């Protein structure tokens, strides 16, 4: 777009379309990222396998859709408990033993987990790109010169509802308060009689339930393949780092920023290059604002 040209109706439409696209995308990224910021903030563990749980969620939606013609929105009711249990099992088998270990041990444990999950998917379901095409993907909505399909809008609404529910849970329930207390100070929480192992188990399970459900929601919007999680995991790290460790509202704001970068990048340079923008944004954020846009507590324990 030529900035010198006065803004006519056509340009305003483009801007409106880009703005709405940013908001819709941001809502989905927020759901992908809140699980990560929860695990990261409370357990102080960088989960490199986070994206693989998203990928598993996408496959769940794909199989439910192609075997039983189940719409992803119905699968959501199943996916939340299923991934909660997956989180509990993963915590017990893999994460529990390394929670007090060094960063290097945690990095390689979760990287190993990521490799295993990706390749289990590869062996079980092959490397083919799969697609979920429910009816609402071709239902077009028009509003004020902007055009969207129903899937995007519903995915956005559900993502926002789930994220809001999680924020409310953390803020107003007893379990949520206990989790936040543990995030603030592990040792003090233990002294207050909080069973930190239980808190970690619960946080990990909730985080995995959130990201698995995000996978189900985005399945119709992206192609499904064994390494589909990688682009999301790096992107959600940008979000989490931008928003601040463990800060859920920060994660929502971070999601909007990342979505804006992606939307503007695809519009100006073409969709083929869009990934390169979040990776560059990622490196820039890490270099210039590793403690988040607003700074945050708890950063020192990760040595930032």
């Amino acid at each position, binding site marked *: 777009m030529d900035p010198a040209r006065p803004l006519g109706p056509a340009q305003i439409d483009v801007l409106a379309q880009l703005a709405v696209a940013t908001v819709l995308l941001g809502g989905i990224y927020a759901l992908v990222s809140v699980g990560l910021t929860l695990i990261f903030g409370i357990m102080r563990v960088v989960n490199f396998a986070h994206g693989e749980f998203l990928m598993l969620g996408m496959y769940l939606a794909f199989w439910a859709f192609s075997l039983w013609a189940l719409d992803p929105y119905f699968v959501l009711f199943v996916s939340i408990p299923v991934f909660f249990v997956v989180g509990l099992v993963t915590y017990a088998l893999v994460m529990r033993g390394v929670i007090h270990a060094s960063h290097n*041990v945690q990095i390689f*444990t979760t990287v190993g987990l990521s490799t295993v999950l990706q390749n289990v998917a590869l062996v079980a379901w092959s490397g083919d790109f799969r697609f979920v095409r429910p009816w609402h993907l071709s239902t077009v909505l028009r509003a004020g010169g902007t055009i969207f399909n129903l899937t995007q809008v519903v995915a956005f609404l559900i993502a926002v509802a789930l994220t809001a529910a999680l924020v409310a849970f953390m803020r107003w329930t007893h379990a949520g308060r206990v989790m936040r207390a543990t995030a603030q100070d592990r040792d003090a929480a233990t002294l207050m009689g909080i069973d930190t192992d239980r808190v970690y188990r619960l946080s990990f399970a909730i985080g995995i339930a959130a990201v698995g459900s995000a996978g189900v929601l985005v399945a119709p919007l992206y192609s499904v393949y064994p390494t589909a999680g990688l682009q999301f995991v*790096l992107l959600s790290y940008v979000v989490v780092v931008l928003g601040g460790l463990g800060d859920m509202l920060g994660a929502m704001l971070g999601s909007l920023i990342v979505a804006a970068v992606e939307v503007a990048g695809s519009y100006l340079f073409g969709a083929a290059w869009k990934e390169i923008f979040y990776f560059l944004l990622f490196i820039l954020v*890490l270099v210039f604002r590793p403690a988040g846009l607003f700074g945050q507590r708890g950063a020192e324990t*990760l040595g930032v």
Partner: protein
Amino acid sequence: MDSLLRSRGGALVVFGLAAVTPLVVRDAYFLDSLVLILLWGALSAAWNVAGGYAGQVSIGHASFFGIGAYAAALMVTRFGRGPWLGMLVGVVISIGAGFVIGFLSNRLKGPYFALSTIAFSQVLLIGVSRWRGFTAGGEGIPVPFRPGFATLGLGHAGWVYMALAAALLCYAVEVYLERSRVGYQLAGVREDEDAAEALGIPTRRLKVFAVTLSAALTSICGSLWAQYIGFVDPTYVFSVDLSVRFALNAIIGGMGTALGPYLGSILITSLETYLRATFSGVKTGFAGIYLIIYGTALILVVRFVPDGLAGIAARLRTRRAHA
């Protein structure tokens, strides 16, 4: 000489056996495995320079491997020059890239550094895949075989010695880091950066030095690999799996030990060769089965034997000394 033999005995056995093997064994399959064991060992030793000795754990070393591989392949196919010149260009580019990554390591610690290295390799992957006009994009580049030393068109025995030379180069750098002042200073940086800084060790400069050195060595091995395999494609040479593989050999063998990466490579590469032979009849994803095993091995090793094979060997030796 006696102390040298005792401390470097394992290395003498490993490299000595590799040097003798082509003289007695003619089996192409066996020699191929040996070349791969040495090359993967050398690559893990190169990773170890940054990850083990300096404590800068990268999961993006495939970046430098890919730069080396592409530099050599493109020099041959696009410019009609020899792969040696490509290797040199690759090293120069990798030194530049290593400098950038080394600078990142001064800003970022632990998991953040690891994440930034992954992001760096992904930027290269996307860039190379999209720049079709020059790099041939996702299709990859077949590297022509032209017999002769100048074109790196060697026979199996020749490749064993070439890979052995790379392995010895990386091993020599590791030994230097164990015995020199710089090496001790790096160990200080790895164990406690603040304390090292307080003692007047230039920690920032040393980290950049270690990461850059590691990048250059990785690039050299990447160039050799491209010429040996004869095919380069972006999704393989810049993949996260490859970066993990470099780290895996070093972790299994023992991070921060000179021979560890080679021991890890012997174990892992043989396992891969064995599995390839076993599962070659099965159509669906040999690579997948292999990677499942190696991811599981990674989880189990860091949890239960964090000092790797070299650590086990050291413990056995002390026990014997006490008995």
